[in-house]
């Protein structure tokens, strides 16, 4: 039973990353109509940013948790201003191709300087160790990742669904021209939205650094799984992305315990099944 609980915890952690990444993808898709292929590369940049902060400036985990998403978010906003904005009005697929190119560039540059092996990043002192819950041993850092990701996801949901800013954002998703006529600066909002989505990816990167090591290709395979998550959940609803992300992580964890051979493929197989039963995804509208 210990092993089962341990795999469930790993599943929840992976689920946190799926949720944070697919949430960012959904937010970006809503505003920019772009599937951000660079999301995995930007997640990796978040982790590297934390690593650089520690080794170049001596700033530890806690400052990195705030600084890395901001730095990578600004990098993302520069990408949006200099490149992505020129794709407005073109086929959505060009956005996919452009961000795929950006991902290749970013990953290639990091691979060139850091190879393919992982760099260690220590767990902060405050979160070291673990506690005995009676039925299992819980490493504190892993528990922290799950709880903190959940809080961030719900905060993002609240921001978009319940605040005035979020209302403007949703309105601009529906009809940007009309919202502009009300005097709201839609291009700036688009840039900030991209920055927000990218910042969420970078935050996931910092959270994963102590668990998964810092590797140039850490986001490359992850992003494909997240795409499958997005296909399963649909990008129509923010809460839908969060729930699907966590649920698929847990299912993957259970698979690791009961049938390890299929743990790499279970999300993709589920995607096929969902497509056969409900092609629009679990929460999605027809597109």
């Amino acid at each position, binding site marked *: 039973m210990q092993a089962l609980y341990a795999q469930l915890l790993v599943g929840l952690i992976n689920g946190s990353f799926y949720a944070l990444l697919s949430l960012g993808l959904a937010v970006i898709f809503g505003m920019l109509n772009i599937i951000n292929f660079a999301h995995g590369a930007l997640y990796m940049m978040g982790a590297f940013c934390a690593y650089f902060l520690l080794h170049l400036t001596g700033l530890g985990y806690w400052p990195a948790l705030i600084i890395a998403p901001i730095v990578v978010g600004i990098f993302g906003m520069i990408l949006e201003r200099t490149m992505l904005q020129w794709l407005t009005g073109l086929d959505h697929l060009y956005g996919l191709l452009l961000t795929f*190119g950006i991902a290749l560039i970013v990953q*290639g540059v990091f691979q060139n300087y850091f190879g393919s092996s992982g760099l260690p990043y220590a767990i902060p002192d405050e979160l070291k160790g673990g506690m005995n819950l009676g039925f299992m041993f819980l490493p504190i850092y892993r528990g922290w990742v799950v709880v903190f990701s959940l809080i961030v996801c719900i905060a993002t949901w609240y921001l978009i669904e319940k605040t005035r800013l979020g209302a403007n954002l949703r309105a601009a998703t529906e009809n940007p021209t009309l919202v502009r006529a009300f005097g709201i600066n839609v291009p700036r909002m688009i840039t900030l939205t991209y920055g927000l989505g990218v910042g969420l990816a970078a935050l996931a990167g910092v959270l994963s650094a102590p668990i998964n090591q810092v590797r140039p290709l850490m986001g490359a395979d992850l992003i494909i799984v997240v795409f499958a998550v997005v296909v399963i959940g649909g990008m129509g609803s923010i809460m839908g992305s969060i729930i699907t992300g966590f649920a698929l992580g847990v299912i993957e964890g259970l698979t690791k315990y009961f049938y390890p051979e299929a743990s790499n493929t279970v999300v993709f197989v589920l995607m096929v099944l969902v497509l056969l039963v409900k092609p629009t995804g679990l929460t999605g509208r027809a*597109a």
Partner: protein
Amino acid sequence: MSALTDDTLPASPRAVRDEMVVFVVMAALLLIVPWTGIYPFFVMQALCFALLACAFNLLIGYGGLLSFGHAMFLGTAGYLTAHALKVWGLSPELGILFGTLGAAALGVITGYVSIRRQGIYFSMITLALSQLLFFVYLQTPFTHGEDGIQGIPQGYLFGVFNLAKPITLYYVVLAGFLGGFLIIYRTINSPFGEVLKAIRENEPRAISLGYKTDQYKLVAFILSGTLAGFAGSLKVFVAQNASLTDVHWTMSGEVVLMTLVGGLGTVFGPVVGAFVIIAMQQYLAGFGQWVTVIQGVIFVTCVLTFRRGVIGEIAHYFRRSL
């Protein structure tokens, strides 16, 4: 909204004549390659990728479907052909047939799943399916995991042509490429191809005209996958191995890049694009990971400033359809 292939001009009788002229020139150039001193291995490799890119282009250029998983057909057919030749000792023609039929079967299954969604979702689904297959091939014993299937015997095609001789192999690969190319060309210019273009331009209208668009898309997907598999089977004889790189998503990305560079939705663009990208990889092999960076830069540049691609720009300049 402008579609990916908005710039292609409508087909005219003149266009067909132009295309036949270019085809003859291309075939003639490729026929004399062995006497020019150009490294034949390079051209053979480029021809296999050119056929793969043409098959990919059939979907995106004429069906509006961007597949991000075409490597799965290349790799699957490669593994099946390699296994048939090495383990079962089948003759080359049966090995190619086996690999191509395997890719066709894969096309039926993956097509049935992926055409349920369009646009961006279609791309993500094909990518996820090819990643699924990647993990399957990583774990199944017959592919030999990370090592791949190596040292594949080339044998005698139809019991006559010795494929171990580079010049014989070259003409066999060339014949395969030209055959595949003509099948695609014929498809594009058939009534079926016209319906496909209609679906790309306006699917609801095609449905209202009574076309079962899903069936058309599925047939196009299967045909594209089968020809991509055929390219993968031919490639086994050139490379004499079948490995995981052929199923990896980076390979799918390269196919997209080749077609983008040459010109999406142009007849000859994928061929030019394949030669450009393969040549680039040959000459830049010493730069290690920078090749990935350069590929990324080409992607970004093409999308931002050069969306018609090489052939698309030429065709646009001369106001012809190529």
